[in-house]
């Protein structure tokens, strides 16, 4: 049996990795639940964001957080224009999965072309900073990820719940024609929502760049577990991915600590299967 400190440390790292799952899942869940689009390209955008952060930090010597000033508006525009394309062709949910897979492949090739297939690790001022909390280590990049994930999830939740714009978005997601009949401009709202989701992907990209080695093929490594997080958290629910992400993150890191790292995927995907089957009964 591993020591208490080791277990506590793995719970902590589970929370951190879970926060990143939640942050990646947030944008995916919003567009999936509210616009009925399954956006695989979300992962490609996150990695594109990570590489841009890497480039600006490494090449131009920016502070990693400052890169958000560039990445967020650019990604907002990118996300909105992607949605414009989908809306223009009235794409079905399943076909959105295929189209965004195509976009993912294109972005992957683009990344590989610019930055090559080699692994890249960003050195930043934050990378080496670690706090000590009792016997536990708290690395600053992971802590930043957690703070960003919680802040954005709460902001999305509050925005959808308390602002007129958010209410209109929820109404349009529920029943677009009826919402339109009550004066909700469903088209521009969905452009806004996709833009925000893509911007979230950009922020997640920053977090990936802070803590992980980058390689183009890594885009696909996140898809499975983040899909599980999104499903378990509930489609369109802004808090769900974060909670589900942390649950999965902790159970994964405990599995790693208690058995071997290779068993970790079993937890998240078994959980996903159980959730899907349980939900199907209700339908």
């Amino acid at each position, binding site marked *: 049996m591993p020591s208490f400190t080791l277990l506590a440390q793995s719970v902590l790292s589970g929370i951190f990795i879970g926060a990143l799952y939640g942050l990646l899942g947030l944008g995916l869940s919003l567009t999936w639940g509210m616009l009925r689009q*399954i956006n695989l390209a979300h992962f490609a955008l996150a990695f594109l964001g990570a590489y841009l952060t890497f480039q600006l930090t490494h090449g131009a010597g920016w502070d990693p957080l400052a890169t958000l000033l560039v990445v967020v508006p650019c990604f907002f525009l990118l996300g909105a224009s992607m949605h414009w*394309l989908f809306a223009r*062709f009235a*794409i*079905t*949910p*399943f*076909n959105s*999965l*295929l*189209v965004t*897979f*195509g*976009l*993912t*492949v*294109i972005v*992957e*090739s*683009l990344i*590989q*072309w610019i930055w090559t297939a080699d692994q890249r690790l960003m050195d930043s001022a934050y990378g080496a900073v670690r706090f000590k909390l009792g016997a536990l280590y708290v690395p600053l990049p992971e802590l930043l990820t957690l703070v960003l994930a919680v802040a954005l999830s709460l902001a999305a939740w509050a925005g959808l719940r308390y602002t007129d714009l958010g209410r209109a978005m929820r109404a349009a997601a529920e029943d677009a024609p009826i919402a339109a009949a009550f004066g909700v401009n469903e088209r521009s709202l969905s452009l806004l929502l996709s833009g925000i989701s893509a911007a979230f992907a950009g922020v997640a990209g920053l977090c990936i760049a802070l803590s992980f080695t980058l390689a183009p093929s890594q885009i*696909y490594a996140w*898809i*499975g577990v983040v*899909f*599980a997080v999104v*499903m378990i958290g509930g489609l369109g629910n802004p808090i769900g991915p974060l909670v589900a992400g942390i649950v999965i993150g902790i159970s994964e890191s405990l599995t790693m600590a208690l058995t*071997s790292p*290779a*068993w*970790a*995927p*079993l937890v998240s*995907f*078994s959980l*996903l*299967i159980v959730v*899907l*089957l349980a*939900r*199907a*009964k*209700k*339908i």
Partner: protein
Amino acid sequence: MRVTASGWIAIAGLALATVPFFKPPAFYETFLYLVFYWIVLATSWNILSGYSGYFSFGHGAFFGAGMYTTATLSGRYDWAFLWTLPAAALVAALFGTAIGAVVFRVGRLRGELFALLTLAVTFVLATVVLNTRIDGGQGVNLGGVALPAIGPTPSATFYFLALALTVITLWTARGIYQARLGTGLFAIHDDEDVAEVLGVPTLRYKLVAFGVSCALAGVAGGIHAMFVSYVTVGETFSIIVPLTVVLMSVLGGTRHWLGPTVGATIITGLVYAFTAGDYAIAGRAAVGLILVVVILFMPNGVLGRFAGRSRTPTRAPDANRTAPAAARSTAPAQTRQQRQGEILLDARGVSKAFRGVQALDRVDLQVRRGEILGLVGPNGSGKSTMINVVSGHFLLDSGRIAFGDREVSGMAAHRIAHAGIARTYQIPRPLAHMNVLENVALPAMFGRNSLGRIDAEREARDWLEFTGLAGKADALPDDLNLHQRKFLELARALASRPSLLFLDEVLSGLTPSEIDNAIATIRAIRDQGATIVFVEHVMRAVMELADRIVVLNYGRVIAEGLPQDVMQRPEVVTAYLGKPHA
């Protein structure tokens, strides 16, 4: 002599089998091997997912199950390679059917949820394989396994194996496409509830399709294990296999048996053309771009766009045998006279609740053979629920229903359809991708009489004649107006030759003259020997047609008897109009 599609497959297969004898450079055979390999994977995926609309993202799991079966049996237990292939098929098929037996039973898990579930199964299987003795994390090396010398060279051997499997796969896909199984799967694709009510054994069909699909993928995996000769979890269970397979099928067209072949050939060719040169990265990007453009501009795939509907052509009926259906079915009228009045459907104490709402509360309902029973009551009184319970769409909470001398409560809906109960839907639910004739032929194929396709279409044409839709036989349901769609519902219910027919508000939304027409039609149906229960709000029709009336309110039977008598009772008037306060 006309060569059938199966014949063409055989001819193409034989022609391609001569290729190795021209001694081409090995990379041609290897390239063609890859084309065949993807054709098999994409086509086998399409048998379940394309035909029935259950898009699976778990094809990698079944392919991988076959791959590791061959790797384990030949690598560890020294089986001869060829003997591992049937085992690979069996393992993959059993695995798939077991998953299907759980997933298909639990609920209607379709679309992206089914896709995700099957994807999750892939990752679970991968983790188990990786961490157990099956792989152990190092991968399985098959370098030492003897390859049977089927062809002159190893690459020719793989070529022959893959070619043979491709021919078998295409025969299977085409065979299922033409057979009842295919028709049933396409009906499931459009509307699973309706398919079941029309008599399609949906659960069994999905399981069979899943099993066949997995078995073929398993064999492909078995051959591929030997081809790559070094099997690893990372390569086998990646997300690339399911995504590529879906992409190929959608590109080619999922509603045609040949669609995946077209897609697989195009994609494999493109990938090869690009990656062979110095532009590997540009090649990948091009494949991605093609995918985006194709889905945006041809959502139904290449064959969906360019090939027409190519099912077995149906002949129009001969001029001299268009006798109306009514004339042909006078025979049962004799027996009908004798058995008139006997109880055909006997429902006792039927209850059904939805969460808090008691939709049916201990309802007793007897239907006598040969009568027209009007089932009336205000909105929400439980009339449609009663139809849904009797036809097997909902399980009842308590009570029992006997039909003739059989107990039908708790039976699957398709077996109830077989027993001779048919229904229409209040809001017409035609199968959108089938034309009017195919819609009506379906219950004739799957219902009580289980006719062959030709006979079923002949039967269907009779009923189209009878309902005045003969001119629309080739139209798609979307092209019909409401009146015609209602009559399509009717024709479809009649085509199974039911002994008991439930009509759920067939008259609502029709104009007065259309109603007159419909009343005459319903009379004509009864005169042919069917017993009819009809739910209706058009009181004129109820009074004209019904021999007897049962009134429901809040899920209870509040009155029963002759039309004029029942509709004047105070409790019935109250139920419809509310209490008089004056």
